[in-house]
């Protein structure tokens, strides 16, 4: 047996009494559990009559997260048709923008959840919402990093700039602190002032750092020279500009010059009289110990990583990232702190191990949404091709199928799942065929929508089966018109015959037709089944008779028998109908027609005699 990746999670079923054996059955997205008669030890006894549903994924029932599913579905469908006419090298900006779309949807959901968490009074709900928010935060963090490293695939130089953006986006508390400081009476004397300045420097936001330092400089005119020097160093800090003509090597040279200059200032003890400025100087040099002193301000090891790269290796190459990542993580997280799943996922990203990222995310998250969409996007960027998988089928398709199957269990979101199945070329259709038949059909409108899905994909068997269900239901409720309209849709001749039989039975018992509005207006659908045609024509005969067009009626009646449209069982009725026509004062049937009538009667008699002979029942046939 294969090793498990993680320990299995145990879920308590509180309503089941202890010691009892439980029985279970798998559902598409959940498990049904019930109490059996048996106990682990002791005599068996009757159990409760409850069935419990154990659900893994609660998220699809959250109203706010539903928006995530719907909006991302829209983006997904758009992605599948993106730039089919555009050569692949020009597609990258489109993929990046789609990735940003996904992320903005995640952020919007996060904000809404956050607002709701603040407003809600129920403590348990607030915790749950808070958890959802932090999960979404983590998801967005990972997605953003994947976008930077895999989709945008920035080369050395730009890579650091993107990583800086990434870190800045996810460390919002700096701005909050700044606001607090600036709103106080004397910002430069606020207890958080130097924290703010250092945070700015750590994030490479030198302009803002300089502006803050001006305030401090104004307070200490005596030390103006020192502040001016720091300002100069900060303003000269080189940042790589990908749009300029400067090459990476040239940038590297300039950066080293600047780095040496900062080092000289430190060695000269230019900042020795102000410990804060000296500390900042050390940070600018990328001194590890100083950086580690800022653990609280950095907050996370990946911030530490980016900062360290900023001040030590701004021209870092993507392939070298993982060395630094590993060492930074080790340095930052001392042996006491527990490494979280998020950390290993981010580390795997820095190692460009896409599969590990996807695998870890699949394990940690209880919903396939994230991995399915991310993998799909990466697959479109052609980043998953070169990897071999043990289980044969495409990773992207596997995840999409899992996600969509989960959606299908939802009473409403099944419509989204259809589009996902459509874009799984190998197994999507089969999954859809199996799932679509299980959608409950309470109203005709829903049945019509399901039917439309099936018809558009030429799933004729499912069309027939759904129409049959609806037609049977209609028939049971005596809605013959509805039943007929469903059989016409499915082109189900057998059912149409059944319905016609019902009509004819009604007529035989009651002597009149019901639902004349239907039979009178059958139109071309009459041709669907022989019995139906007969019904329509027979009704027409009655109409003609009622309008006193006797010769037309007679001709029609005869043709019904001679053309064998009428079932033999009905011939007696038809012949009986011919009687009043024969008894009319004027001659209606011509000689030939009369002979034909007699022939029909003979045929009927013979078949009846033959049937009687085989049953040994004597029958009398009399002419009236």
């Amino acid at each position, binding site marked *: 047996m294969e090793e498990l990746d993680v320990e299995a999670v145990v879920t308590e079923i509180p309503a089941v009494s202890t010691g009892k054996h439980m029985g279970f059955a798998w559902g598409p997205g959940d498990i049904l559990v019930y109490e059996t008669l048996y106990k682990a030890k002791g005599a068996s006894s009757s159990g409760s009559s409850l069935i419990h549903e154990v659900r893994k994924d609660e998220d699809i029932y959250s*109203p*706010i997260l*539903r*928006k995530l599913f*719907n*909006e991302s*579905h*829209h983006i997904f*469908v*758009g992605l599948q048709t993106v730039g089919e006419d555009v050569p692949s090298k020009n597609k990258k900006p489109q993929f990046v923008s789609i990735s940003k779309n996904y992320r903005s949807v995640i952020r919007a959901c996060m904000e809404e959840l956050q607002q709701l968490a603040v407003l809600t009074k129920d403590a348990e709900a607030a915790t749950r919402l808070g958890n959802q928010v932090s999960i979404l935060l983590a998801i967005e963090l990972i997605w953003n990093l994947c976008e930077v490293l895999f989709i945008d695939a920035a080369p050395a130089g730009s890579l650091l700039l993107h990583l800086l953006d990434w870190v800045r986006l996810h460390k919002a508390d700096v701005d909050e602190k700044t606001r607090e400081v600036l709103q106080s009476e004397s910002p430069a004397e606020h207890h958080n002032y130097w924290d703010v300045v250092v945070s700015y420097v750590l994030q490479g936001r030198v302009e803002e750092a300089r502006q803050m330092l001006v305030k401090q400089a104004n307070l200490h005119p005596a030390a103006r020279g020192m502040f001016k020097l720091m300002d100069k160093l900060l303003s000269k800090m080189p940042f790589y500009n990908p749009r300029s003509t400067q090459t990476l090597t040239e940038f590297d040279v300039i950066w080293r010059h600047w780095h040496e200059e900062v080092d000289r200032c430190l060695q000269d003890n230019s900042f020795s009289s102000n410990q804060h400025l000296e500390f900042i100087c050390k940070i600018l040099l990328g001194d590890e110990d100083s950086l580690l002193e800022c653990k609280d301000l950095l907050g996370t090891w990946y911030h530490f990583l980016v900062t360290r790269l900023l001040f030590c290796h701004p021209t870092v190459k993507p392939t070298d990232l993982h060395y630094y990542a590993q060492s930074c993580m080790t340095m930052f997280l001392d042996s006491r702190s527990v490494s979280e799943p998020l950390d290993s996922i981010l580390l795997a990203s820095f190692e460009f191990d896409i599969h590990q990222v996807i695998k870890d995310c699949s394990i940690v998250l209880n919903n396939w949404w994230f991995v399915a969409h991310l993998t799909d996007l990466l697959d479109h960027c052609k980043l998953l091709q070169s990897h071999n998988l043990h289980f044969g089928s495409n990773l992207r398709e596997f995840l999409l199928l899992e996600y969509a199957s989960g959606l299908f269990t939802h*009473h*409403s979101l099944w*419509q*989204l799942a259809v589009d996902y199945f459509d874009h799984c070329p190998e197994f999507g259709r089969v999954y859809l065929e199996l799932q679509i038949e299980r959608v409950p059909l*309470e*109203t*005709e*409108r*829903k049945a*019509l*929508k399901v039917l*439309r899905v099936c018809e*558009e994909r030429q799933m004729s068997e499912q069309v027939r089966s759904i129409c049959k269900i609806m037609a049977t239901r209609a028939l049971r*409720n*005596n*809605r*013959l*018109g*509805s039943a*007929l*309209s469903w059989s*016409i849709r499915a082109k189900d001749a057998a059912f149409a015959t059944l319905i016609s039989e019902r009509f004819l039975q009604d007529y035989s018992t009651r002597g009149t037709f*019901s*639902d004349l*509005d*239907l039979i009178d*207006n*059958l*139109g*071309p*659908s009459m041709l669907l089944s022989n019995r139906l045609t007969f019904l329509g024509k027979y009704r027409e005969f009655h109409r003609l008779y009622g309008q006193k067009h006797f010769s037309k009626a007679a001709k029609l009646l005869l043709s019904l028998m001679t053309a064998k449209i009428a079932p033999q069982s009905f011939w007696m009725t038809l012949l009986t109908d011919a009687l009043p026509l024969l008894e009319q004062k004027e001659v209606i049937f011509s000689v030939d027609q009369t002979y034909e009538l007699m022939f029909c009667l003979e045929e009927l008699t013979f078949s009846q005699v033959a049937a009687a002979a085989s049953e040994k029942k004597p029958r009398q046939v009399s002419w009236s």
Partner: protein
Amino acid sequence: MESVNAKYVSQKVSRTRWRPVSVSSFQQPEIFATGSWDNEDNKVSLWSIGNYGGLGMEDGFEGDPQLLCDIKHDGDVLDLQFLDQERIVTASSTGGVTILRHHPNSQTLSVSHQWERAHRYPCDNAPCTSVVCSSPEIVSVGEDGRIVVFRADQEGVCRVIENADSSTIHAVTYLRTTEVLTVNSIGQLKLWDLRQQGGSPSKILSLSGDRVPLHCVDRHPNQQHVVATGGQDGTLCIWDVREESSPVALMEAHSAEMWEVHFHPTNPDHLFTCSEDGSLLHWETSSHSDMPSLLHEGSRNSGVTSRSAMAPAGGNKSLISAWLSGDSSKSCLKTSHMLPSQTLSVNSLDVLGQCLVCGTDGEAIFVNRQVLV
């Protein structure tokens, strides 16, 4: 085309309706109601797109619709109409018809009256598919083929026409104050005179040829004999109920069921249709141009063709001019898409003044405030 943004509302929207504004005031509508379907707990909600004073009206969409209040609804909301400024009538998939009242002071909705199981089978529920009202009278139709007439102030049912139809009646509309028109799933229009006591229609019209089920119907606001219907195959038909028994004009509008068709209430040269195929079309006819031309606007190519096919036996009626040919002058029919890109089925639309609201199966509502009429 102005950008139209989607507001995601976490429920599939089956009906959207503007609250009526008094005709004398030239205000644009501000409040609309939506009904949901296919949820375990369905809701009727009221939304406002009120003026947020002084903001520039550069584009058609501005400001999210804000939820004012909502109320749980038993069963899918299959139809929804405003009875008057404060009351809403809903048709439910459980067969019930409900009147809801909006209390603007407390901003709540409450059930004012309910007729449960107005539509039913002997041993099952029959969904009530459509409801139409002309205060205080309410007419409802359902899958059981029954037409039921209520009065808003009366407890019980006013009148029932049993077995009005052997198939499902999909929609109903008033033709005159005493006449209603129903469409059913075997492609027939039936006129009912409510003054008469009998249980049969005064007239039946149907398409010659394939009996395509009809899903929606709307009457021309000014010309009471002109009626538009939408069918299961997405065809738009214009009928003259006075004489013809076949439609006057037939147009291939959509590639799937057409769920709603609406004439613009004050500018009836404009017609709007929405469909299962995810598109919402704006039809515009004018009778004052020399050349008949079919223009396509819209940012995407969806293969919509508009042709008018026709000629009923009677006459030489050419392309529609003011929907029915009055004179034989050629006319111009313009069609444009109102939604930016492919969405899931657009289930409902409503248009009033310059504002259009629609709801989709993608759980989104679109509001367009600058419809060109």
